[in-house]
C-alpha cells in the first residue's frame, strides 16, 4: 500500500478536512493572541496549529505536507521560537532590567507586560507547533521506511 495517498481517495474525508483545517488554524491563532488575557497561550496554540497540519498530512500524504513546510524549515523555526523568547529576556537585560523583566520594554508598565508576554508566547507557539510537527514527521517517515523495506523483501 502506498502510504502517502491512502486516505485522500475518500471524498467525505477530503471535503470535511478542507473545511476544518483552516478553522482549526484560525482557532489556534485565536488561542495564541488571547494568551495574555484568557486561558490559552503559546503552548496550546502550538499544539492545535500542529494538529491542523497533521490532519492535512493524514489526508493528503506526507510528501504534500512537507511541501507546505519542509523539515529543515521546521527545525530552524523550532530554534527561532526559543531564540525569540530568549531575545526578549536579553533585550530586557540590555535595557538595564532583570532577565524577562518586561516593564523595561515600554513606558506604560501594563502595555509593556502585554507586549512582552505576547512576544514570548509567540516564540513558544512557533516552537511547540514545529516540535509537534517534527515528532510526527519522524514517526511517519519511519513507518514509510519500514513499509518500503517490506516491499523490497522477497
Amino acid at each position, binding site marked *: 500500500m502506498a502510504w502517502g495517498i491512502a486516505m485522500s481517495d475518500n471524498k467525505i474525508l477530503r471535503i470535511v478536512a478542507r473545511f476544518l483545517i483552516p478553522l482549526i488554524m484560525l482557532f489556534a491563532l485565536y488561542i495564541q493572541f488571547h494568551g495574555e488575557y484568557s486561558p490559552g497561550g503559546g503552548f496550546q496554540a502550538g499544539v492545535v496549529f500542529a494538529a491542523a497540519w497533521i490532519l492535512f498530512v493524514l489526508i493528503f500524504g506526507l510528501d504534500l505536507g512537507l511541501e507546505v513546510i519542509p523539515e529543515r524549515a521546521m*527545525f*530552524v523555526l523550532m*530554534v527561532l521560537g*526559543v*531564540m525569540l523568547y*530568549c531575545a526578549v*529576556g*536579553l533585550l530586557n*537585560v540590555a535595557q538595564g*532590567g*532583570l*532577565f*524577562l*523583566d*518586561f*516593564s523595561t520594554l515600554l513606558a506604560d508598565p501594563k502595555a509593556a507586560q502585554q507586549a512582552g508576554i505576547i512576544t514570548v508566547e509567540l516564540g513558544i507557539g512557533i516552537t511547540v507547533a514545529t516540535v509537534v510537527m517534527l515528532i510526527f514527521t519522524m514517526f511517519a517517515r519511519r513507518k514509510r521506511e519500514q513499509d518500503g523495506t517490506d516491499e523490497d523483501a522477497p
Partner: protein
Amino acid sequence: MTLTQWMPFIVLMPLILSGVSALLPGKTAPWLLAFATATASTILAALVWLGLGPEPMRYAFGNWAPPMGIEYRVDHANALVALIVSGIASLALLWGKRSADQEIPERQGIFYALFLLALAGLLGITLTGDAFNVFVFLEISSLSTYALVAYGQDRRGLLAAFRYLIMGTIGATFILIGIGFLYMMTGTLNMADLAERIPAVADTNAVRAGFAFIIVGLGLKLALLPLHLWLPNAYAFAPNVITVFLAGTATKVALYVMLRFIYTIFGGDYSFGALPLADIMMVLAVAGMVVGSWVAMFEPNLKRMMAYSSVAQVGYLVLGVALVSIIGLTATFVHLFNHALMKAGLFMALGTVMYRTGSARIEAFYGVGRQMPWTMTAFALLGLSLIGVPATAGFVSKWYLIWGALDAGQVWLVVLILITSLMAVVYIWRVIEAAWFQAPRDQQSPVAEAPKALLIPLWLMVALNIYFGLDTRLSLGAAEQAAQVLLGGF
C-alpha cells in the same frame, strides 16, 4: 552590570546557546561553541564563588519579587557545586573532541545542543532557590541526558537509555509528588519561604510523606544503592565524552539537592529527628560502598567497572551526610569535589584507550601499558587517587571521612572504609595487571599512543588530582564553607 546581575548567565548562556548549536553545521563549529560556552560558565561561576559575601546572592527573574516569583539564590554551597559542574563540563569537552568525532560520525550540532541543555539543567538545579524550578531543570537535564546516552555506537546504549528514562522518570515523579505535598501544606514553592513555613505544619503526615517522596526520588537520581540499577549501563554505553561529563556531575547535583532539602528546607533537626534518616542513609551508604566495590572487582567491562565504583563512591558521599556532623558534611563536599576530578579523569583514561582499541573489555587492555605508556600511567595515577593514596586528592576525602567516623565514635566505619579502599586497590590493579603484565592479544598490529589532543587534557586531570592532594586550602576551605552554610540554614 554588577556580579549579581551576571550570575544567572551561568545557566542562561548554555541554555540559550544550545539553540544556536543545534543549527550549526559540521563537527568543529558546534564543539567550539559548546566548549566556549562551558568555559565562560566556569569563569563566571568562579567569579561568583569568589565574589560571594556572607549573605546569599539573589536574583529575581522578571523582577517578580520572591516568594511569588522565581529567584536564584547562591551561597557558598551551591556556588561550589556550580563551579564543579561547569568546570567538569569544560574539561570533558576539552578532552572529548576527538573521541566524539570518532563515535558520532554524522553532524554534531544536535549532540552538542543536548550537551549544553544537560549542562544548563544541572546548573539550573544548583543555582535556583525555588523548589518547583528544581524539578523543571531536573527534567531539562534528565531528558537531554537520556538522548545523549542513546547516542553511543553500541546498540545496547538504546536499552540503557530507555531504562534510565523509566527509572529517571519515576524519580522525577516522586520528587514532584513530594514538592506537591509541600505546596499543599504551605502554599509556597520558594525554598527560603518553605523553610519558614514548614515548622508550623511539620508534625503532619502530608509533610512527612512529602519528605519521604523527595528523598526517595533524589535517591534514584543519586543512584543510592538499591536504586542504582540504571547507572552502570547508562555510563557504560554512553559516548565516552558523555560518560566523563555524567560521572563528574549528575549524581553530585542530585546529592546537593538532597542536602538542600534536608538542611535548608526541612532543617537538620526535623530531617534526622522525625524520621530515622541517618540510620537509613548509613545502612544504604555502607551497602553501596561494599556492593559497588564488590561488583567492580569482577566486572569484565571496564566502563561498567568504573560505573560500579561510582556506586561505591556515592556510598562514601552519603556516609558523610549520615554522620550528621560538620566534619562528615565537610567530608561529603570535599569528596564531591575530588570524586568529580578523579572519576572524570579515570573515564577519560578509559576513553583514550578505547579511542585506539575500540573496546572497553578487559581483554582489549592486554599489553596496552607498553603501547600507550602515557595513557596508562595517567590511569594508574588517577587510580591511586581513587584508592586514596597520600599526596592525591582521594586521600584528603578518605582522611576526612575517617576523621568524621572516629569523631562520631564509629570505629567499625573506619574498618569498612579501609576494606572498601582495599577493594578499590583490587579493581584498579586488575587493569594495571592486564595493561602491563599480559601479552597483547594481537601481536601483529600494536596500537599506537593516543594523540596529544586526548593526552594533554588527561594529564591535566592527573595534575589537578595531585595538586588538590597536596594543596588542600582551596578544596577543603570551600568544602568547610559549604558545610557551614548548609548547617546554618539560609
